[in-house]
């Protein structure tokens, strides 16, 4: 497969190797993060006039799904401010590589908590309380503050980026879909690494990855620490075809299937709640603690943990039976989880287009009056309109969903022995796409 190694360009290499460009971006995002928390806590209680709501749920969440992931994999993780304070303490400095003298107990993350199970759980939790979090600036701010403190606390107890690796729901989301993204970090020459016994790259990696062993981009946060410490300049940052991590030979774990299914269910439920015409459903999702909300949560969990996994289980089981060599169901579930990646990514992009294109008019007014105190910094405070979905955006949503179906069908075929074997998974993808199609443009 064709790859374009960015590090071959001396200018790009200099940019990646120097800690400054990345550091400056992270310093800015950290300031933005702190400002977001403060505006959520101090600013207007009216969501459309609060920077925290508009920037977190419209600007950032949209950019993450429409730009960062599809064009850069986990590139957001490389400039995410959340681990910065913890790493400052862990490494004894902001510009220090890992392994210096810092604070923290440096314990290993418990084995039984490994994997993306908790990230998927966190994402589910966000979904259950989504109607409240999405509309209340205070709660958004409290969640962000909690995340910041939790990440800091965990980095003092455990080694590396434990929060990012195992808890961050966005990390789970980004990591899953980064497998389809067009950026990867790999070693240039395997032999050089084999001959190098110090493994400085592994020591330096905040994510606990060993670049030589990287087969998937799911758990690599593109922080470039390995590239900076490699004595032989043997780390490549490749632009690659989309979906390169998805294929017959790549290894996948069961938790990826779970994460993928949770994301699919969340896309469905969010589309129904936020874009659908069912007012009762919205009120139920908002009235946290009420009987209606428990009913909503029950249905949500049933979709995420019952119906979708059930259908997927059936599809994977059938695919397994249709193959010539039977593997155990567990392996089969993990193997076919790759189909869920392009399917979910494109569904989320389509959802985002439907959701955010209408609301984008709120972004500049929120810059002009971030706290909703009646400021007018750039003269655009009262320009937000109602917003509407255009036929262009509807057509684009259909096209994106279809790309997702095409892509996931292709992956299903590629990882199956025969087309017959891929059929159950294609049917699963088709069914899901139909549901999304109906929710978004039906």
């Amino acid at each position, binding site marked *: 497969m064709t790859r374009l190694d960015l590090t071959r360009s001396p200018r790009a290499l200099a940019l990646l190797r120097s800690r400054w460009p990345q550091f400056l971006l992270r310093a800015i995002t950290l300031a933005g993060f702190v400002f977001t928390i403060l505006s959520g806590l101090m600013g207007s209680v*009216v*969501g*459309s006039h609060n920077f925290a709501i508009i920037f977190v749920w419209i600007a950032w969440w949209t950019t993450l799904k429409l730009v960062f992931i599809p064009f850069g994999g986990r590139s957001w993780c490389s400039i995410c401010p959340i681990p910065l304070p913890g790493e400052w303490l862990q490494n004894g400095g902001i510009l220090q590589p890992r392994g210096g003298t810092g604070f923290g107990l440096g314990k290993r993350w418990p084995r039984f908590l490994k994997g993306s199970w908790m990230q998927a759980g966190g994402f589910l939790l966000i979904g259950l309380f989504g*109607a*409240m979090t999405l*509309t*209340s600036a205070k709660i958004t701010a409290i969640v962000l503050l909690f995340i910041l403190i939790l990440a800091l606390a965990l980095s003092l107890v455990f080694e590396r980026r434990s929060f990012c690796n195992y808890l961050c729901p966005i990390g789970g989301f980004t990591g899953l879909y980064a497998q389809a993204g067009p950026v990867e970090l790999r070693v240039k020459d395997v032999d050089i690494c084999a001959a190098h016994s110090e493994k400085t790259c592994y020591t330096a990696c905040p994510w606990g990855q060993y670049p030589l062993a990287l087969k998937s981009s799911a758990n690599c946060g593109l922080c470039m620490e390995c590239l900076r410490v490699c004595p032989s300049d043997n780390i490549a940052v490749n632009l690659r075809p989309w979906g390169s991590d998805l*294929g*017959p*030979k790549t290894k996948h774990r069961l938790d990826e299937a779970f994460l993928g299914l949770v994301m699919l269910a969340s896309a469905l439920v969010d589309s129904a*709640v*936020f*874009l*659908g*015409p*069912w*007012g*009762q459903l*919205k*009120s139920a999702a*908002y009235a946290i603690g009420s009987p209606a909300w428990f009913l909503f949560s029950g249905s949500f969990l049933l979709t995420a943990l019952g119906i979708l996994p059930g259908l997927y289980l059936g599809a994977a089981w059938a695919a397994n039976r249709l193959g010539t060599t039977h593997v155990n169901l567990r392996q089969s579930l993990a193997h076919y989880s790759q189909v869920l990646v392009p399917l979910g990514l494109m569904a989320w992009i389509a959802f985002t287009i439907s959701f955010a294109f*209408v*609301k984008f008019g709120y972004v500049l007014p929120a810059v002009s009056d971030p706290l909703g105190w009646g400021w007018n910094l750039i003269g655009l405070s009262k320009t937000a309109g*109602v*917003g*509407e*979905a*255009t*036929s262009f955006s*509807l*057509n684009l949503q*259909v*096209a994106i*969903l*279809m*790309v997702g*179906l*095409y*892509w996931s*069908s*292709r992956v*299903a*075929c*590629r990882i199956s022995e025969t*087309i017959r074997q891929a059929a159950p998974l*294609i049917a699963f993808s*088709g069914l899901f*796409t*139909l549901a999304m*199609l*109906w929710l978004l*443009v*039906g």
Partner: protein
Amino acid sequence: MLLFIGMSLLIFFAPLPQPVQIPKDRLIRIEASSFQFIPGEIQINPGDRVTVELVSTDVVHGFSLDGYSFELKADPGQTATGTFTAGKAGVFRFRCSVACGNLHPFMIGKLQVGVNLLLFRGIALGLLAIAAALVSLRKAPRRRM
């Protein structure tokens, strides 16, 4: 490859006829409360002259129809009335246009004018997408296997 792109463009943009219905005058009473419209889903035919009576039952609400620049605002006790002609077919969302609380951005209903061709185009495209996926792999037999 080109064939598939051509076909998908065809499915997307081919002018399909809407089943012809005799346009009629309709009076639709929509009750707006936080945070829903009742009825939330409305089906009419292209060419219908629609008079909307917007009744608000709790606080001030609005009614803004995507694609039609048709807007109403109603206070409780003061029904707002407006008329438009459904010249465009398809599914259009209508939204509350007066901030009415936390879930206001999601106070949405939908108006279907005629047959939702986009949905059927979407389904046809989906079948095409699956076919394209199968063909694309058969042409280039698994190189990496």
